[in-house]
């Protein structure tokens, strides 16, 4: 049987004639992750394999499962052209093409990032905060921050000091304000060049993954600044939440639930702000500060 999948009309000219039973049977994949249901459509076997390979990377730590065909809130389509292995790759999100004229690898990275973002924004009863996160003596320390603020570097430094690893991408809060792991590999810059991220397992840093949920201990708002000194400024809960908000993914989508959870986080955590210089030195200061300001005061 020969079939052309019904993708967007402008793509049809470039579509492969897909042959074989398997391809026809699995042209749509459905998954659920944190209560978010997503449908993936592919145009051929290569695209199918790409999706299957990307999903465990985008949504690590067994945080998604394949489900039967169902109503979904989100739809991704991945179009690969085997005649053009350099480019020949496009994807759509909810019917809208994500523009690009870049290499297949770049597009697939964007695809992965969009899947993760979709789940992070729409997760049910969870609040995803873009942050590095570790556990120290049973309590979570999270470091919210945008890319290029040195979040991963500091997370790795904390792991080297013996903290357990939760994530270098998302701190996942439940309704009670406890932190859950998002156990992806660390995306480290500086291996290839200052921009390209290299994925490194936490074990390569001598670290170990944390499992389960953890009460929040500290939120550290910090970013790298050359020659900066460790001068922690304790923020009020309200100002602390305000500082966190630019990194809180679902705040626009569901501000009511998000603020309720962040309020609980702020009541239980100390929220501190400072610039930092060297990550290893800073990690030591973070842990000392955390023990003196958080653990002792909270009876640990």
């Amino acid at each position, binding site marked *: 049987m020969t079939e052309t999948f019904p993708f967007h009309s402008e793509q049809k000219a470039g579509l492969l004639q897909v042959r074989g039973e398997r391809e026809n049977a699995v042209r749509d994949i459905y998954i659920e992750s944190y209560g978010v249901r997503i449908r993936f459509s592919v145009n051929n076997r290569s695209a199918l394999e790409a999706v299957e390979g990307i999903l465990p990377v985008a949504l690590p730590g067994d945080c998604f499962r394949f489900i039967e065909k169902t109503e979904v809130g989100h739809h991704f389509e991945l179009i690969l052209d085997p005649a053009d292995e350099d480019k020949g790759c496009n994807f759509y999100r909810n019917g809208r093409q994500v*523009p690009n004229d870049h290499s297949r690898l770049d597009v697939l990275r964007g695809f992965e990032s969009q899947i993760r973002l979709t789940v992070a924004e729409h997760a049910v009863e969870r609040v995803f905060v*873009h942050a590095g996160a570790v556990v120290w003596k049973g309590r979570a320390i999270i470091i919210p921050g*945008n890319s290029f603020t040195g979040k991963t570097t500091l997370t790795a430094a904390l792991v080297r000091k013996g903290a357990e690893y939760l994530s270098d991408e998302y701190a996942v809060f439940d309704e009670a304000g406890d932190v859950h792991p998002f156990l992806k590999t660390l995306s480290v810059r500086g291996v290839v060049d200052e921009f390209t991220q290299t994925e490194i397992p936490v074990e390569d840093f001598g670290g170990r993954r944390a499992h389960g949920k953890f009460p929040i201990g500290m939120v550290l708002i910090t970013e790298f600044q050359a020659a900066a000194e460790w001068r922690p400024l304790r923020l009020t809960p309200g100002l602390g939440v305000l500082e966190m908000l630019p990194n809180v993914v679902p*705040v626009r989508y569901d501000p009511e639930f998000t603020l309720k959870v962040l309020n609980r986080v702020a009541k239980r955590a100390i929220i501190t702000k400072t610039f930092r210089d060297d990550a290893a030195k800073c990690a030591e200061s973070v842990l000392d500060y955390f023990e003196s300001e958080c653990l002792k005061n909270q009876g640990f």
Partner: protein
Amino acid sequence: MINSQNPVARREGLVIQEMPEEVLVYDTNTNKAHCLNQTAAFIWKACDGSNSVKDISKLVGDEFGGAVSDDFVWLAIDQFNKDNLLQEKVETKFEGFSRREVIRKIGLAAVVALPVVASLAVPNTVLAVGTCVRVQCCAPSTTGGATCPAGSPPSTCPSPCVCPATGNPTLCT
């Protein structure tokens, strides 16, 4: 703008979260968040349409144990105006003083902490994620379509840009 002495706090389109000594307000129309300190929160709650500024001054004094002037309340209302936290903007009255002068005057004498509203515009989720895999900078007609290296920080790219991963045209501005 009305010239009313009885300001009314806006409620519609706001998500309000009471915190121990502050109030966090999220404006779903503008995607701005505001943190009202204890004094600002008290004054905002007192803006129910039945209290004049003079009434509110007295309520603040009673609540916080120190007399405050009307200017103290006007200072808060001035911020509520700017942050669109009132149903209708109210013309503020600083009796010939600039806002800075009022702050200086009140601040020196006040026993009660000055009302402060800290605000922040919440970026969309694309910006929250921050890293673009590769950023196409500028239209070919304007700059030759320069392309930033993979993972470039927004600050390194001239605007306008389009992120292929997100389609966001303002990522790098």
